[in-house]
């Protein structure tokens, strides 16, 4: 990501006159650069940008897959329908709750695990392997594990609850389990990003502070946190955007029943259950906008630590 700021350093290594002499070479280099990037750019444009634009176009139409012949333009009417519907706002609220709670818990837990991995004097490889497993495991497989664990009569966790309770049929408890599954699965990612940030905190600095009588809390808040700020922000950005599009865990655990559906589940249901391409696309566009706004807010918050700015330059 820092390539943007670091790479231009290369040609600077050449002297000015050398550069002028190489201007023909520089032009060839530029062409070669574009040539190398072209296939990736074309694929990304065709498969990511074109569909987003197409989704917007679809969202302006009344387009029901059951009655394709009745397709017609309706302007922004679909947006009115979605934004004035309680279903959308309910799904939005559920998504926000899941995202905020899981990311907050993951930040704390991830920080603890990063410190454990960084300083533990024993079994380091073993701990690292076990932390990587949830990251790598297929979300659907993990979600089934949680589902079976909480299914009355099957699971060891459900059997710990009072008889007759079925946590996956109650809204609040289901959301709790969804958050638990999400935290289990994605804390490792948070941990690794924070661990990399922690590696930038010089041990001597911490030792010096200790000698000077700083408590461990002071060392944490006044040395580690400020130095880790860029890593923390990057981790929060990635995880928040990722949590906002939560789909797999909910789809397996509750299918979105009992008021546990996220916006992604709502978009999916509108397309594949209601077969309403127009409304489904409207929801797609709205989710896209929500994610763009979250990203924008975060990146404003980054200031100089935005991805693309190298740490050395700060």
């Amino acid at each position: 990501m820092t390539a943007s700021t670091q790479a231009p350093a290369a040609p600077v290594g050449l002297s000015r006159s050398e550069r002028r002499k190489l201007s023909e070479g520089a032009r060839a280099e530029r062409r070669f650069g574009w040539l190398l990037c072209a296939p990736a750019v074309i694929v990304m444009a065709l498969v990511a940008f074109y569909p987003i634009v197409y989704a917007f176009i679809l969202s302006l139409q009344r387009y029901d897959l059951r009655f394709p012949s009745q397709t017609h333009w309706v302007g922004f009417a679909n947006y009115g329908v979605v934004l004035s519907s309680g279903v959308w706002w309910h799904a939005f609220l559920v998504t926000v709750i899941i995202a905020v709670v899981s990311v907050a818990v993951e930040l704390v837990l991830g920080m603890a695990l990063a410190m454990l991995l960084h300083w533990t004097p024993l079994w380091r490889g073993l701990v690292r392997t076990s932390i990587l497993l949830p990251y790598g495991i297929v979300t659907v497989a993990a979600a089934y594990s949680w589902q079976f664990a909480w299914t009355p009569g099957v699971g060891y966790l459900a059997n710990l609850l009072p008889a007759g309770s079925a946590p996956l049929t109650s809204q609040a408890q289901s959301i709790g389990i969804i958050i638990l599954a999400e935290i289990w699965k994605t804390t490792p990612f948070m941990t690794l990003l924070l661990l990399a940030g922690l590696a930038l905190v010089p041990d001597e600095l911490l030792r010096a502070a200790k000698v000077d009588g700083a408590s461990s809390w002071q060392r944490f808040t006044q040395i580690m946190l400020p130095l880790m700020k860029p890593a923390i922000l990057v981790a929060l950005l990635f995880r928040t955007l990722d949590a906002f599009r939560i789909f797999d865990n909910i789809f397996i655990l509750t299918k979105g029943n009992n008021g546990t559906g996220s916006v992604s589940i709502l978009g999916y249901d509108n397309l594949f259950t209601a077969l309403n391409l127009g409304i489904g696309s409207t929801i797609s566009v709205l989710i896209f906008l929500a994610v763009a706004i979250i990203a924008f807010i975060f990146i404003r918050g980054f200031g100089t630590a935005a991805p693309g700015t190298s740490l050395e330059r700060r």
Partner: protein
Amino acid sequence: MTAVAAPAARTTPRRAQQPVIPPRRKISWGTANAITIAWTLFPIWWLIALSFKDPTTLTDGSFWPIKWSGANYAGIFHSSAFIRPLLNSIGIGLISTVISVILGTMAAYAIARLAFPGKTVLIGVSLMIAMFPAISLVNPLFNIERVIGLFNTWPGLIIPYLAFSLPLAIYTLSAFFREIPWDLEKAAKVDGASQRQIFTNVIAPLAAPGIATTSILVFMFCWNEFLFAISLTSTNAARTAPAAMGFFTGVSQFTFPIGSIAAAAVIITIPIVIFVMIFQRRIVAGLTSGAVKG
């Protein structure tokens, strides 16, 4: 940071010569480690336990199989309902990985080493795409693929996977490429090698560890993907293993094929466990080098 240094290190314990740890610290660190390991492993163990339970004891709620049996595995491997999706997963995962790592390597090399305008924009745009909500692409892609006949085919899944794995490949690889000793490139230049020759003969071999790591990360992404896999397929012709598992449903709680799902879940977890055990340092380096460096 550790991106390239780490893979070079031996897997043998490097901390062997460290001072003796006082027993009390050993106990407290050991406890913390044990809790962490238990937390990460118990949902995985639960799947394994379920998958080896005899079908008659599946609902005994026991954390440990009382009656061990391979019946669940025999069941899923006796029908094409799981084998076909498993083959789809492997095929689609490998093809997507190869294509996106090749295209990603080209772009990342250009970004890391060549001076050309538009580089910053390219990185910003690929980061943006990495953050796209997949559901936003599902609606339009469903309609496009239905019209052009890619719906429910391998390419129909490979193409969207490329869109999401390319950004991952590009920035992981460009982080690795920055660690390569580029003086060799200068030397090759002095010796009269062309940009193209430098790329294929000097840089590509040096870049191999980064490329291997990126391939693992990209494959894991494709292996894990679920939303496109259920939305852009309708039969086992292209449905991947996680998607097929999502449709292993029964009419009620009691006919729910718990044993088959558990066995299938264990099978699709095996490659991940193998990757993680063999390449743990590389995976950590690959995931973090890009993010922290920029």
